[in-house]
């Protein structure tokens, strides 16, 4: 039953490393009953990224191969997909480092979301969960003429969350999401952490109540898939753990926030 591993011969060009075979999961609901795999041969240099390969296939071989992309340098979050079994951004990944010993790479859409076409998935539940946690900051009523004062340390504490690009690699790697679409999910919990931990936010209590519910922080089974999947090396699990701790002392945290906001318009005193 493992014949397929041994049967195909590796072509010379692939042995030499200037060609690669890209296996793409295809599915067009207009014509296909179910998804199938299709192989394409593409030219490769050390510079070629996985996105370059997809782009080459789309523009030179089969224009119906469909995927999302935009910035091509890992900041817009469009091109998250499942590459060789794990989620990553196609744009920042060198093709040559993603091949097996037959010179092949396997690309599928992000798991756990309905397929729209080929590598494009329907992210409705992803964005619905993002909305559920109220991603916007609610500042205190007393808005200063200039900036609120935050220490470099307070900013640094938000760093893990502020650089999230909402690509969905974590969401689609989370087994809890796979079983339960009501779960808020690592992306939205990370965003909730960003807002909750921000000294300028004035509704941390309400935020903690939202994530404290049935489908919030306690659904996380600390499988750590989200950490492995994150192309920006962020740590949603840590944020979820922090939210758990804060939710258990919500009132005290709210009080501390009220206290902190009393001096939000004053210079930080250096230690």
């Amino acid at each position, binding site marked *: 039953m493992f014949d397929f591993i041994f049967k195909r011969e590796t072509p010379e060009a692939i042995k030499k490393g200037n060609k690669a075979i890209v296996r793409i999961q295809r599915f067009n609901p207009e014509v296909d009953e179910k998804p199938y795999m299709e192989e394409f041969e593409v030219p490769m240099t050390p510079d070629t990224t996985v996105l370059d390969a997809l782009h080459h296939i789309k523009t*030179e071989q089969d224009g119906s191969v*469909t995927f999302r992309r935009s910035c*091509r340098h890992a900041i817009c979050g469009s091109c998250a997909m499942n590459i060789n079994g794990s989620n990553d951004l196609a744009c920042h*990944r060198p093709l040559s480092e993603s091949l097996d010993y037959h010179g092949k790479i396997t690309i599928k859409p992000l798991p756990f979301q309905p397929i729209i076409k080929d590598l494009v998935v329907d992210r409705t539940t992803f964005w619905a969960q993002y909305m559920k946690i109220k991603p916007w*900051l609610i*500042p205190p009523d007393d808005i200063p003429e200039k900036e609120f004062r935050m*220490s470099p340390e307070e900013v640094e504490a938000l760093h893990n969350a*502020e650089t999230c690009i909402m690509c969905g690699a974590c969401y689609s790697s989370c087994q809890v999401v796979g079983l339960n679409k009501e779960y808020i999910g690592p992306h939205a919990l990370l965003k909730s952490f960003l807002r909750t931990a921000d000294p300028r936010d004035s509704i941390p209590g309400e935020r903690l109540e939202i994530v404290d519910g049935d489908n919030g922080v306690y659904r996380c089974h600390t499988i750590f898939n989200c950490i492995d999947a994150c192309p920006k090396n962020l740590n949603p699990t840590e944020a979820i753990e922090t939210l758990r701790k804060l939710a258990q002392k919500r009132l005290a945290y709210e009080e501390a926030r009220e206290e902190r906001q009393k001096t939000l318009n004053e210079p930080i005193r250096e230690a």
Partner: protein
Amino acid sequence: MPNNTITHDVIVVGAGLAGTWAAMVAAREGVKDIGVLSKIHPLRSHSGAAQGGIAASLSNTRPVAGTGPRGPLEQIPPGEEPVDSPDLHMFDTIKGSDWLGDQDAIRILVDDAADVVYEYEHMGCVFSRTPDGRINQRRFGGHSAPRACFAADWTGHVLLHTIHEQALRNNVKFYAEWYVMNLIIEDNICRGVVAMDVLTGEVHTLRAKAVMFGTGGYGRAFKITSNAFANTGDGVAIAYDAGAPLMDMEFVQFHPTGLYRHGILMSEACRGEGGYLINNKGERFMEKYAPDKMELAPRDLVSRSEQTEINEGRGVMEDGQGIFLDMRHLGREKILSRLPQVREIAINFVGVDPIDAPVPIQPTAHYSMGGIPTTVDGQVIANAAGDPVVGFYAAGECAAVSVHGANRLGTNSLLEASVFGRRAGYAIAEFVKGGAQLYPVSGDPAERQRQRIKSLLDRDGDELVEHIAQDLKSTMTDNCGVFRDEDRLKVAMSDIKELQERFKHARTMDKGRHFNTDLLATLEAEHLLTFSEVIVAGALARTESRGAHSRTDFPKRDDEDWLKHTVAHKTDDGPKLSYKPVSIDWEKYPPQERKY
């Protein structure tokens, strides 16, 4: 009324900073019914790719006393003299624009700067801080004080997410992955747009009392570019096709530090933090071209200097087409804390860690100074006489208000998109609440676009759309790039004409209806061919060198004949050019020689 008609009070096209600001402000001002259309999800917009910062003369930092103008920065203690002012910002911007920027608009840009940055901060934007908790500021090219407010090197990302979240908070409705194909203007009144829902492939007419474009730039017309796949200048081409003029299209900024061969941006913050540019002799060659500002001269000048080094055989890499950006002396800690994204990009795309080795770079098409001409309130102007296109607004990179003139300074684009997007939002709210009407649309404009799609899909020529797009990009980079001359521009123009003909037979491979991104690429290619002709026509006509437009056959700026904006209208015989005076305060900021 035809089928598939949707109505809103306001339709915004494009969900980057300019469009989202306008929508958010209009909603906050009480306009209930706003739809924002974007061909990609709003958070994928290219505003998010901006790295280095947003300019505002806050005077939060200064060079440490006794270390000179390029010394390390420290926070300015409370009560001590500010080092910066809106006036200084204004002068730098005017000088950067090579006096082609409209000074009435620049006045507003610099006066609103602090307020817009503080508003971002109050809405939750996570800026980097000084030790006493103020917004931290770094140096940027062409600015004479540390003026760039930043969030590490992902400033655009945090600004975009912040404003998008606040728009959601204000119940703005977003149409993600809707591609606008046509702008409906009749009798000089804007009545709506025609757009395709990419998911279903259905084409809809969307009527509105006001339409605002924040559709971004047109850098994708070039082979080496820092721009996203999405930046195909659709809004600019659509407005031009609908009869609106385009202004100063020949002014395209080439950023000095695009990653070698990829074009991906290595932030100007690399040089703002102290990085060097090095040729193959190991020389910091900028001392020849801008002895005072060195690497922090404005972008047009640095790109020309690099290209000169390359052309004279002092480039690096196998083909001699690169320059080294050396940041090693900044040290590990500074690179990790201030330039983390840049470092990641260099490692991922060229396999170089800037901590250990210099990064190969080259000039890359980056920013579109030209665009749809507007007033300082975002109102689109129909002609050189200044008549408005009623109900049509634009802001950000697709517009030319014009604060950047012939060359933009780094960090002024995030500022411009925010300041003028916000102002457009206020103006639109006033317009709609002042009793603007929903004007009727004649015929069925959506049906015309359906026919356009059908005819594109029915074509079965031998040639692929992508090959035409590639040929266009090559000729634009080779013949309408950092340096231009009459001969090369004429080659570019004849190439474009030929490509427009070839496009008529080009084949779209995907014939399906839903989520047909191949069809989108075809429509985008058509737009590239449309506005590229305007770029080259303007560049051919302008027989001088000013800012980013550098003619080797006319190397001097010529204020006598050319201190004026190019205005292009579409005609059957190609772009018809006319000219419009620049707004200048002759007392305070008269044209001077531009030296750095």
